[in-house]
């Protein structure tokens, strides 16, 4: 799904098993709150904050997350 900069989201599930497997190991768990801090200069990478831990994902990787 699409994300907006400066908003918090609560992860519900994922729409791509392969990416899901990898995101889970990084701490992107269902029911976890993530904050979308900013986009990269060219817009293709996203900077997230999970409880103080900072992780960058590619746009396509982030879009495999289903969150509210």
């Amino acid at each position, binding site marked *: 799904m699409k994300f907006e900069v400066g908003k918090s989201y609560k992860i519900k599930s994922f729409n791509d098993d392969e990416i899901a497997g990898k995101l889970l190991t990084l701490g992107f768990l269902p029911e976890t709150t993530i904050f979308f*801090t900013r986009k*990269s200069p060219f817009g293709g*990478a996203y900077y997230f904050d999970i409880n103080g831990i900072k992780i*960058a994902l*590619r746009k396509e990787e982030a879009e495999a997350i289903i969150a509210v």
Partner: protein
Amino acid sequence: MSPTTKIFKVALIGNPNSGKTSLFNSLTGLHQHVANFPGVTVDKKIAKYQIDNNLTIELIDFPGTYSLYPNSDDEKVVAEILSNPVNDDYPDSIVYVMDPFALKREMLLLTQLKDIGIPIVVVLTMKDLVEKRKLDLNIKKLEEIIGNKVIFFSNKTKANIDEIRLALKQSINNPKDNQRCYMLNSDEKSIVATFSNRLNFNTDYQALLQIHHSDWLKYQNKYLKKEIKEYKNNHDFKSLSFQINETLDRYGFFSKEISKIAIKDKTKKETITDKIDNVITHRVLGPIIFFIVMLLLFQAIFSWAELPMNLLESGFSSLSTFIKSNFAESWFTGLLADGIIPGLAGVLVFIPQIFLLFLIIGLLEEIGYMSRVVYMFDDLMKKFGMNGRSIIALISGGACAVPAIMSTRTINNWKERLITIMVTPLISCSARIPVYTLLVVFAVPDTHIGVFNARGLVLMGLYLLGLAMTLVSSMVMKYIIKSKGRSYLMITLPEYKRPLIKNIAIFVKEKVGAFVFVAGKIILIVSIILWFAASYGPSGAMDTAEKDAIEISTGKNLSKEEMSNLKASERLEHSYIGILGKAIEPAIKPLGFDWKIGIALITSFAAREVFVGTLATIYSVGSTDDGMKVSEQMAKDINIRTGEKTYNQAVAWSLLLFYVFALQCMSTIAVVRKETNSWKWPIIQFLYMGFLAYFFSFLVYNFLN
């Protein structure tokens, strides 16, 4: 120690940025060496570690990983070894390294390791930071939750290092198994049961890993792989979704309890890292800051390194002179003074630059800046078929392609890594500078364009040309090279920290050492071969040439020095290499090069800057490497056939472009061969760069002529 004594192996395992490398450095200091894990170009750092008089162990630093379901070749190594009890590197004991600020995430791998069934010593790092910030962390409680003793340690103060020593000793002398965490579900149990007598494992979880990873594990034979695959298909065994469920299950295991004791959430308050990142990774400021950092980096490499480089250079040439004047003339002194020493000097003079390059890169990496660079430019690099991590290689390429290509190991997608390797040598490295500066004198008049010196502008243009061709080539390769697997960014941006100096020191030592070893070995061999080829020729030819030179000299009344220079140049012309230079003349004539340039092109395979030295010899200016003298001689050189100057503008431009593009460097070829594990890629690289060089030289020569 008797030869039968078993050497116990201890693996350091942990998430990336957990402080694993720092702990390895704290424990072992400089007594470590780097090898490869068998069959892959993944660094394996090993060190002997003496626990006490009776017990010495081998510590192995495993690649950082988040789980035993790996994302990259590095991480695969961990799963490959830990799932296979008969692997040579299968550890007797594991040190699990944890960062107290990421406890929850780190529980996943810890539970997996417990299920592997190897004794574990848990070390929590960054004690100094937790104490300095007066944060609350209940270690007793943590030990209760995970059921292991936890050693809280600081890589900065190293205060309680004996506790680790003691715990290691205990885990080897009285190994204690761990409690298992994950219970296999019924589908997993039955697949393990089906294959159990065909697999080699200690715990059910190891067997399960062997089944999940069956398609890429190196130690499994292909018949078994096929059967496992068939079983998975027939029984609808979905490896991927089982892995996801297992991971979730594992997180469920400790996470509630861990949440209670974990260092409090800081999402509400802005941390220092947040504040820095607001500027450093800002969409507009970020790239500007990066650009400034790069300017400073190159400023440092090129200006600070100049003095030590000059010292090294003159040191080596006085060594050569000393040998020549103090030892009896023989083939051996010749080989030493004219072959090996100048050859080695060609490598060693770059040490100051490479040292500075890696000092700065190491520093940027240690503070946490490099991962921000990867984040900021990943998407841009992706357009060129590369990856954010490629930037580090391309930057290093500005000093030398050899360490740059070695640094691509952190790129986890094969295609992106390969493209980075293939294009990096197009970035103008510092060995091209002496060649550029010599030739630009002939190519461009000494005038000014505005406030800028025209020659300076052309030099900059050559750099940009190399960079532009890097990008164009990578763009082309993106469409040609086939992809193996998906590529990911997914990178943790660590907290900004004060660097631990020891880590940087070890990093720099390792990089400089690798450069000297790879490049040094090649250059040594090449310079010995070249020396023989330049000193010997078909029988009689060289002696006749020498006699001629003496006759001419006496006839023209030349000084002793002039005579010996003339002798050297006549001998070179009639040596094997001179013959070779003449043999290739037809091929390079369309570019405006004569056989003298041909010789220099061949010798400069040892390293590009050798070009200058060879021309010095050919133009009989003795063994001096002084660019000005060479260029004066070159300016006087007349083409016999046309009666025109050999080094007119067209030839100079043609040569310049040739050196921008051609892969004139044996060491690079060797390192590409090593990193890609085949001759295919270095050959393709040599050919495509050679084609570019020939094409552009031909074009510019014929255009200007």
